[in-house]
Every structure is written in structure tokens, then in C-alpha cells.
């Protein structure tokens, strides 16, 4: 790798280290300066003042999973668009036809998912 490129990422490395320290310092300060008097009522789960019923990690809607799966498929396809977009200026007409076919396929997939009812929140 080019030394210049490494240099840029080293800057980001420095930035990252300082960024990681930034949230830790206020939390530590809050720990030191704030009072600490926990009691069972205070540390209880707050659900609008009513006592919690049953386990917290309950079953939730399958719909969340379906959206995650649909997202994964489309996101992987969107990743393919990035190298194409960067090189688009020099590729000419062929790349244009190619990408129209690709976009058409993406849209077809979206229509399929849509018609299948996966995007419907029931």
C-alpha cells in the first residue's frame, strides 16, 4: 500500500482513539460525582409504573426478520452499484445498458417482494 494512503488512515486512527475516550470520560465523571444509593424499587424495570409481568425477552413479530432478510438481499445488490458508479464516466454505452438491466432486475425483485406481501405490516 502507498505510504500516503496509510498516513490518511493513521489520522483516522488517532481520531478514533480520541473519539472512544470522549464518551468514557463523562461516564466515569458521572460515576465519581453522582450519588449512588440504589434500592430495589429504584432499580426495578420502569414500565409506566405497573409491575413487570413475565420475561423481558419475549417473542416478537416475525415481520422484523422478514424486513431484515429483504434488506440483506437488496443491500448486497446495492453494493455492486458502487464500483460501477465510480467507473461510470469512462465506461460508455455498454455499462449503461448493463446497469439498466441490473436496475430492472432489482425493481423486479422489489415488485415480487411487494406482491408477495412481505412489505405489508400486519
Amino acid at each position, binding site marked *: 500500500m502507498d505510504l500516503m494512503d496509510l498516513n490518511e488512515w493513521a489520522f483516522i486512527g488517532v481520531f478514533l482513539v480520541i473519539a472512544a475516550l470522549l464518551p468514557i470520560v463523562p461516564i466515569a465523571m*458521572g460515576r465519581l460525582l453522582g450519588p449512588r444509593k440504589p434500592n430495589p424499587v429504584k432499580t426495578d424495570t420502569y414500565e409506566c409504573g405497573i409491575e*413487570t409481568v413475565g420475561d423481558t425477552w419475549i417473542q416478537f413479530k416475525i415481520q422484523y426478520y422478514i424486513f431484515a432478510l429483504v434488506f440483506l438481499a437488496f443491500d448486497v445488490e446495492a453494493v455492486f452499484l458502487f464500483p460501477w458508479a465510480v467507473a461510470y464516466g469512462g465506461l460508455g454505452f455498454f455499462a449503461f445498458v448493463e446497469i439498466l438491466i441490473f436496475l430492472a432486475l432489482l425493481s423486479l425483485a422489489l415488485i415480487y417482494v411487494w406482491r408477495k406481501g412481505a412489505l405489508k405490516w400486519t
Partner: protein
Amino acid sequence: MIDPSLIVSCSASTACSLAHAIIMSVLIFATLMGGFAYTTWLERRLVSRFQHRVGPNRVGPAGLLQPVADGIKLIFKEDFIPAEADKAIYLLAPILKAVPALIVLAVVPLGPPILIPWFDGLWYQVPLGIADVNVGVLWLLAITSIGTYGVVLAGWSSGNKYSMLGGLRSSAQMISYELSMGLSMLVPVMIVGSLSIADIINGQTAPPIVGWYLWQNPLAAAVLMIAMLAEVNRSPFDMPEAESELVGGYHTEYSGMKFALFFAAEYIGMIAISAIAASMFFGGYHWPLPATWAPIFGPVNMFIKIVLFLSGMVWIRATLPRIRYDRLMAFGWKVMFPLALLALAWTAVVLVVADMAEDPLVYQLVAGLVMGVVALFLLIWTWRRSQRSAAPLDVTDSRNSVGWAIVHAIGAIVAAPFAVYDWLMAHRGGFSGLWDVTRREEAARRAARAAAAAAAAAEAEAPTDTDNAE
């Protein structure tokens, strides 16, 4: 004038590089933290004006010390961990949410390189930004999606059903809108042919304002801004923390400084997306003050644009009600995603036609024509919508939802630049100076491309020694 031989690039010297990295990081973090504090002040003042109140005005002049008082109060609050919580993850979550919000701006340059004199008689050329990496847009997308983990883990580890629901909702919402955001960010990338934010900003310099990529593809700009609003969970997309149904959402169980971190991350996220939107479609640091004359104007320009965007977000919050969750997901997938695909196809068509025509005027005409067709389509569509909803108002009808209102707004945004473009075409003579600049640049670009192609062809005909060796 400075002797050009005395100017050295900062990256050539290790000491300068190191000093630049550290000083710039500290400066950016200080600005972001201060910006966060005063964004809360701005929001409270503006929202109270919208609601016919005065807002915080007791602590300092015009309430300007209110954020300081809030900060001091939060540090001295008790910071307890709920008995039901998963302790390690509960501690990690606010950090995971705050760090990405802080580092996302690392790749966004805030001005052109600045010349700083030093004691050794040399002038150091220091870039006004952390780093200008060649994968800047990818960095933005990657880092913004890491913030989702903070929200999900906070919701999951709190040991509270409301928190968990808030976290789940947020993750589903963020991934849905991330797709449209990524696709609309591709439009400037396509026009410039580079993933570096500095290249994207410098591609929008001439002519001022008209050169902004907003006019090349207003649809993509609108999609990007709406998707970014959803990414930072701002109203009307503030589902994860819908206080009327989920208490506080994912941060219900957080108190003291940990709660403040979630709060800070949200506001710093707002600042970050304003900076990103300004760089991608609104000319970055180049306007209204001439940043090429004095680099120090760059950050000032960015500041002006960011404050305008922030005020816009506060205005949206004061105006629009929260969207119901099913409609929010439907809007993301059934309106935003197809619109993002359409915007991508639009720019692809315009660019390929311009490439074949080899004439910038044809390119401008085609861009205007495509914009006209899209605007006409949207106008007819919205007109038919309005005809249909002329029937007695039915509140349960989803056509009257906020989602459709936003689509109408996109129609208006699309129509406005078309009118501007029309006007520009009518007054072309008066703008001949501007047009000549773009034409000359276009011609130079084409010549360079043709030369490169010719060189490549010559190389292909005469195989070099390395080819033979292989």
C-alpha cells in the same frame, strides 16, 4: 505573494502530520460537543417560538448558558443500572451509539487546504479535515449504520419490554432507509467518478449555486435528506423513542451521563448529516463566501449551511406529526426505494447521453428534459391524488398520511429547479460568462479523456516489454 518554493505539503513532514491529526481531532470534537450543546438550545428556542412560547431565557443572556446548566445537572445525577439489565452490554451501548456519531465527519473536508507559516520559514499546506480518503462515501455509509447497534443493544440489554420494542423498531427503520440513502448518495459519485468527498465538493464549484448537484438530480437530494432524517431518528421518523407509546423507547432505563450520551449522539448525528447533505448536493464549503480566496471561509460556509439545515429539521419537527410505524415502513420500501432507483436511472441516462453527444449544451438540455418529464409525471400524479381525496376527508385513508405529503413536497422541489432552469435558458446571453467557463472545463475534460484513450490504444497496439516477459 508567497514564494511557491517555500510551500510544503503537511503530509510530507511527520511532525506536521501528527500535530495536524491531533489538533484537528481535538478541534472537531470540541466543535461537535459545543455544537451539540447549542443545537439543543437552538431547538428549544425555535420550537418554543413555533408553539408561541418564549423558551429557556433565564440562564444567561437569551438562555445561552442553559446547555451548560443542563450538562452540570446531568453529571451530578445518580447513574444506576437496573436490576434486570445485562450489565456489560448496558454499559457498552451508549458508547457504541456516541462514537460513530462523532467519527462520521472524519472524511468530510471543511475547507480547502490552509497555508500556515512556521518558524522554519516554510509555509505548511494543512488540509482542513481529518483525512481525505478515497473511499469517503463508503466510510459515511459504514459508520452511520454502526450507530444502529448502539440503539438495538441498548433496547435489548435494558431488561424492559418497551425498550426492546424501541430497539427493534429502530433497527428495522434504520436498515429500511439506509438502502435509499446509499442509492441516492451514488448520484454525485456517478457524476464525479470518485468516492472522495473532497472531489465531490470540488466538482460543484462552477458556476456557483447552478453547479450544485442538487440541480442535476433534485430527486436524489430529496430522497437523501428524507432518508437521513430517518437514519438519525428525527421527527417525523422518531419511532424508536415515541414517547406517547413506548415511554422513552430504547433509552427508557438510562439515567445520568449515559442518557446524556444518547442525547448527544442524536444531536451530533443531526450536525453530521447536515454536513454530509451540504457536501453531497449543496456545494459543500464553496458558497456563499469565496473559500478559494481565503480558505478560512470554508468552515464558515459549512457552519452557515449546517445551521440552516438544523433549523429546517427543527421546523419539520414543529410541523409534522409522527408517522404510524406500518406507514413508516411502507413509505421507506414502497415510495423511497423506488424513487431512489428512479433517481439513479435518471442520472445514468443523462450522463450516457452527454457522453455520446460530446456537447455540454446537449447534456444540459437532456438534463432539463428528463427533469421536465419527471416533474410533469409527478404533477399529474399529485393532481390526480388531490382529485381523489377531494371526497369527504377520511382519516383512516392512507392517502392523507404524512408520507404522501412528503411525496407532494418532492414534486414541488422537482418543479422549482425546472422553472429556474427554464429561466436560465431564456437568459443564456446574459450568463455567457458562466456558460463559457463550464464549456471550457467540459472541453478540457473531454480532451484529457480522448488523450488517455488514444494513449491506451497506442499502448495496446505496441505491446511493451513487460507483456513479452509475462
